[in-house]
């Protein structure tokens, strides 16, 4: 046994020689991809990668003399019949191996989105390296353009998009969710729509960011339309993704504005079928703190506060109704998940409409019931900067 151990231990140094084998790869030989964009060009797919330049960062940190927003990323594109083909062609132009493990942003170009993203999606979920939790976006215009800009803050425009999504101001869809939703009952999904922000007057032409600006609606794997930024907010209410929102609404006859932030809201979809009439009740519980009060109303007055609450409710309802209406009647695509709700509660009814769900979806009557409350009035109770006499106390 001892002799065997000794002989075994003699084998140990051989491991060092073995280390060149298998799938070992040094960090120095990896191309750290931060984002991948898909575009369509004459029936072929163009893949554009944005990758980090590890060396330029030492230059910035070292001397401190470099420009504050030195380019830390670069892009390169490859064209092919499908994604794998395009990437293999792209790899030929890169001295380092494409590494998807840190790539957290995928962007579909507008044109490609309109003609379908299934092929791209298949590549992304089949390949072992891309993360299931990476974020999916659709661009206005070419997706590659979103990667060409370099932001003044953050390392890359991809990271900006990721941070923006994480703040939940916009809608966030991961690769996994996208796949699940396209497979789900309604076979529809909403993806955040990104476009390039106009650069500052003093900034370099490409020193800007791409930012989330509205929502793209997909039916099956095709983009069928956009939601404006305002309607997108309503969609977030319907999807129960409300977070860090600010709601601003007018009160009283003067139509002076009051803002509530951050909003905490719980949204429940309650499906109901009576005869032929399908009704969806959207029940919303919202609350938040007052951050601005432009009126002369004293919010500590119970009566006035109650009126403010009603106005708050009205505004929320307006948001939701706007979005529901737009999605139901203009886009005719169930990205809200009504289908799932009905499937769960009325599996038998669901079976009957499954094949013609898109039509049925338009017939659903949406009833919005909002209960909203202003919780705190902030540091001051009276409206700021107003003499006592001018404040409406009752």
């Amino acid at each position, binding site marked *: 046994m001892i002799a065997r151990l000794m002989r075994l231990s003699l084998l140990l140094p051989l*491991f*060092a020689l073995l*280390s060149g084998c*298998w799938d*070992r790869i040094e*960090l120095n030989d*990896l191309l750290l991809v931060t984002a991948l964009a898909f575009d369509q060009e004459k029936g072929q797919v163009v893949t554009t990668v944005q990758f980090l330049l590890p060396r330029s960062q030492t230059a910035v940190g070292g001397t401190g003399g470099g420009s504050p927003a030195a380019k830390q990323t670069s892009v390169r594109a490859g064209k092919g019949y499908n994604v794998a083909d395009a990437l293999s062609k792209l790899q030929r132009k890169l001295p380092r191996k494409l*590494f998807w*493990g*840190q790539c957290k942003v995928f962007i579909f170009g507008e044109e490609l989105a309109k003609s379908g993203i299934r092929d791209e999606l298949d590549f992304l979920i089949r390949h072992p390296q891309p993360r299931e939790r990476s974020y999916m976006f659709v661009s206005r215009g070419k997706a590659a353009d979103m990667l060409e800009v370099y932001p003044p803050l953050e390392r890359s425009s991809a990271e900006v998009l990721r941070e923006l999504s994480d703040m939940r101001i916009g809608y966030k869809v991961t690769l996994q969710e996208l796949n699940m939703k396209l497979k789900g009952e309604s076979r529809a999904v909403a993806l955040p729509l990104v476009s390039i922000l106009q650069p500052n007057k003093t900034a370099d032409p490409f020193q800007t960011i791409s930012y989330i600006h509205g929502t793209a609606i997909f039916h099956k794997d095709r983009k069928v339309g956009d939601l404006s930024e305002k309607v997108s907010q309503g969609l977030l209410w319907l999807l129960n993704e409300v977070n860090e929102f600010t709601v601003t609404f007018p009160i009283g006859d003067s139509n002076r504005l009051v803002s509530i932030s951050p909003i905490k809201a719980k949204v429940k979809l309650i499906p109901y079928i009576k005869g032929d009439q399908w009704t969806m009740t959207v029940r919303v519980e919202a609350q938040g703190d007052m951050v601005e009060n432009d009126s002369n109303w004293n919010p500590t007055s119970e009566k006035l506060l109650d009126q403010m609450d009603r106005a708050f409710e009205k505004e929320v309802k307006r948001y939701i109704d706007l979005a529901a209406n737009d999605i139901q009647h203009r886009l005719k695509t169930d990205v809200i998940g009504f289908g799932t709700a009905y499937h769960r509660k009325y599996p038998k009814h669901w079976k009957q409409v499954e094949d013609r769900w898109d039509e049925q979806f338009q017939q659903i009557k949406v009833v919005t019931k909002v209960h909203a409350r202003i919780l705190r009035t902030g540091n001051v109770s009276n409206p700021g900067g107003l003499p006592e006499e001018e404040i409406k106390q009752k």
Partner: protein
Amino acid sequence: MTSNANPSSAQLLKQELQKLGKQPVGAELEHSSEQLRQLYAGCSDVVFRPFLIGGQTNAFLLYIDGLSDAEAIEKSIIAPLMQVQMQPSAAEGLPKLVSQTITVSSTKPVTTFAQVMEAVANGMPVLLRDQEAGGVAFGLPQWEKRTIEEPGAESGIRGPREGFTETLRVNTSMLRRIIKSPLLKLEMMTIGEYTQTNVAIAYIKGLADETLIEETRARLSRIRIDGILESGNIEELIEDSPWSPFPQMMNTERPDVVAAALLEGRAAILIEGTPFVLVAPITFFSLLQTPEDYYQRFMVSTFIRWLRYMFLLMSLLLPSLYVAVLTYHQEMVPGSLLVSMATAREPVPFPALIEALIMEITFEALREAGIRLPKQVGAAVSIVGALVIGQAAVQAGLVSAPMVIVVAITGIASFMMPRYIAGIAVRLMRFPLIMLAGTFGLLGIMLGIIAIVLHMCSIRSLGVPYLSTLATFKGRELKDVLIRGPLWMMDERPRLTGDSDAIRQAPGQMPGPQHGGE
């Protein structure tokens, strides 16, 4: 076999010595003194002092200069014997004479030459008288010894400051001062053909399992060797798994540690000539404990114990994890961290595996150099080390800064092991793990860990499983492994082997207001 047929001169001498040793010391002084003179021929430190007892009978005193108290010999043995008036007859013998005239507190009769040699070597002067077989040895050993000092390798903040010395008698006395019960036994034996080193097995009768002591005794008496210079020699010859990198016995310089071990039913082996006392059986966890754990408040100790476990894992795994993640699992690192590591690694020409090995080996070399060098130069080593492997190597682009950090943390972590031997075993395991990490990634590390754990499960310390309380799970004893339970909760001794007296203190001693007053 060949040596028997054609014995070497050394063996002849040994045999002769043995033969002489068995002979009794004869009545004829001339003859036996001649024999002894021959025996000690060439030993310039051996003193033969012939004199007449009461001016009539021939006698002589034999001792080794420097090992016995010459002044006391003069005052308490030679002077009274020379002045003695009434001499008892040969029939009544030396014992009577000694009991009448000699004022030395401890005496011992010797009959054979072996006994004479042993007594003399241990600093006991031997008196032989004409016309009488045998002699008397007097307990007057005195030699230069180091004073009791604070142990250098085991310093602490709270706890006794004294440490063992090189003198066995002093060490046993220190133990006896702590444990005064006569049940503390100190069995003596000598090991080593030439060194004749005194070795004491200490244990508390009743607490230590009888079979355990028997086993210790048997293992010690099996040793046939020229000499024992340090407890490490003995450890190597009696441990359970000689092919293991893990120490299966604990060595300590602190009497309080030994006393605590004895009170838990363990055995201690004290060796003449070294301040390091062996304690066995132990488990791996006892190597991760310090005496201070038991002197501090238990919450503090528990925290420190966990810190230690954490850093134990770190010192074992950190470099290999770094190598594995960097070469195989880049997706596991948070994005921004990976970018800064990639940036730092950009100028480094070596693969991560080689980089790690270079740095680890350099660190080990610096550590070793720091230990061996005289204190005055030691500082220079650390300066050079810090500058060379820290600053300059990174700036020159030979290694990356994250690697320096990893190696530094690993180094600190390995110094957190309270027992140096445990720390160094873990450090040794690190290298195969780095190799595995560089070859198979995390998979390799997992394999390595499995191998190490399997090995640790398979070894024993004096028959006690090494990972005892976890492997051979003993739920009740976890209170002294996972945490350091409050003293008033640890009512039972750890169970080592067999059934020993389990209860060590009265239960329910949690202090509180309801226990006081009234």
